[in-house]
């Protein structure tokens, strides 16, 4: 009834145009890399200072100086470039990346994003590049389950978790449907074995969409 994360990653990958510069956030968004077209149609950015990131190295070929933002070993494609952290985040903040794909705790119907902090008392906060990714790319895609483990919707009227960025998300890919966040409201872009009525009931949000 709902999409697997792998299938969802393939759908996100399908929506990224050839020639795009893309940052795939830590965690689930990393799966998207497996479904991008082969070759160099898409160029991957990693915020720790590289464009043209390639796939994981073969076992035993890991280079401790060559890692992604998740601190996992990666490789460099021909045509890659390295730069320092201020240049890398200038690239993000300056709106040069075409697409950034992020995970989320919650997204609000206005595109507010919460993905960095549970807000739990005693939790050690850690933000990393999340706030920069949220505000930087031309298009910010979120990949998440539509509901949390307790069945509560994660696409909400207002985020209850601490915000990562305000009105920054353009599109939300979930296991049940894909939503565009527009000035006119939440647009249902496509659904996966789920009706609009089911979505309306689940989310209790105004939805716009081709029926």
């Amino acid at each position, binding site marked *: 009834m709902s999409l697997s994360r792998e299938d969802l990653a393939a759908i996100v990958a399908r929506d990224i145009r050839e020639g795009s510069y893309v940052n795939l956030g*830590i*965690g689930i968004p990393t799966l998207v890399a497996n479904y991008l077209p082969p070759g160099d149609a898409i160029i991957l950015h*990693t*915020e*720790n*200072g*590289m464009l043209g990131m390639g796939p994981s190295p073969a076992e035993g070929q*890991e*280079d*401790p*100086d*060559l*890692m*992604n*933002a*998740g*601190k*996992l*070993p990666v490789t*460099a494609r021909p045509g890659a470039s*390295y*730069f*320092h*952290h*201020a240049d*890398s*985040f*200038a690239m*993000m*903040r300056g709106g040069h990346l075409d697409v950034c794909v992020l995970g989320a705790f919650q997204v609000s119907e206005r595109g*507010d994003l919460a993905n960095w*902090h549970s807000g739990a008392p*005693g939790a*050690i*906060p*850690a*933000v*990393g*590049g*999340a*706030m*920069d990714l949220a*505000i*930087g790319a031309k298009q910010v895609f979120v990949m998440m389950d539509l509901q949390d483990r307790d069945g509560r919707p994660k696409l909400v009227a207002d985020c209850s978790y*601490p*915000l*990562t*960025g*305000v009105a920054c998300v353009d599109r939300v890919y979930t296991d049940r449907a894909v939503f565009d966040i527009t000035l006119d409201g939440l647009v249902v872009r496509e659904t996966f074995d789920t009706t609009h009525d089911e979505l309306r009931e689940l989310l209790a949000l105004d939805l716009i969409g081709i029926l």
Partner: protein
Amino acid sequence: MRTKLSTGATEALAGIPDGATIMIGGFGRAGQPVELIDALIEQGATDLTIINNNAGNGETGLAALLAARRVSKIVCSFPRQSDSQVFNGLYAAGLIELELVPQGNLAERIRAAGAGIGGFFTPTGFGTQLAEGKETRKIDGRNYVLEYPLRSDFALISALHADPWGNLVYRETARNFGPIMAAAATTTIAQVDSVVELGALDPEFVVTPGIYVDRVVAVGERSWLRHGIFIGEQA
């Protein structure tokens, strides 16, 4: 040019007092100047403020400096990791102060310090907890937060090669914070795998001009390259 080459890490660290603010390069372990940190532990300076992207990994390097209780405050973007147990324990016990800064603001504040910029308006963090109490402004329809430069007394960084003038080149993503920290510190100390002859670095390819580097110490191939692989953990 008077030589910038030190005979060893201990000599290179001369003069770091208690209470100093020290930037330490590296993103996780890549670019972390492990030999300089080890020498800093031995040197004994305490009550330090450390600026780094993280708050130590495992039990070595920056984590070992924290474990030795030399650090009273850390400014970083991503303290909590699967192997940040040393920091976690100190923080839970109230034994270390934390200033959390979004990674891009951290980088830009360090860059601003080196570049003589008094403050800058950044969109990153607007409307979040990390901008609470900070000045904001809408410019051309976009919301920004005013952030200030982040300076330090010392920077400890790691590079691949230096020449005798202190010009530096880096290796792959180990470049990360090195170039901007070098410019933001009053005294910059660089460990390098090896020192090359003056003129051996192509002037087109120098990443950190020697003006930003005060002391250089060759440590041989870094231990990360020798002992290498580590487990991934998010940013």
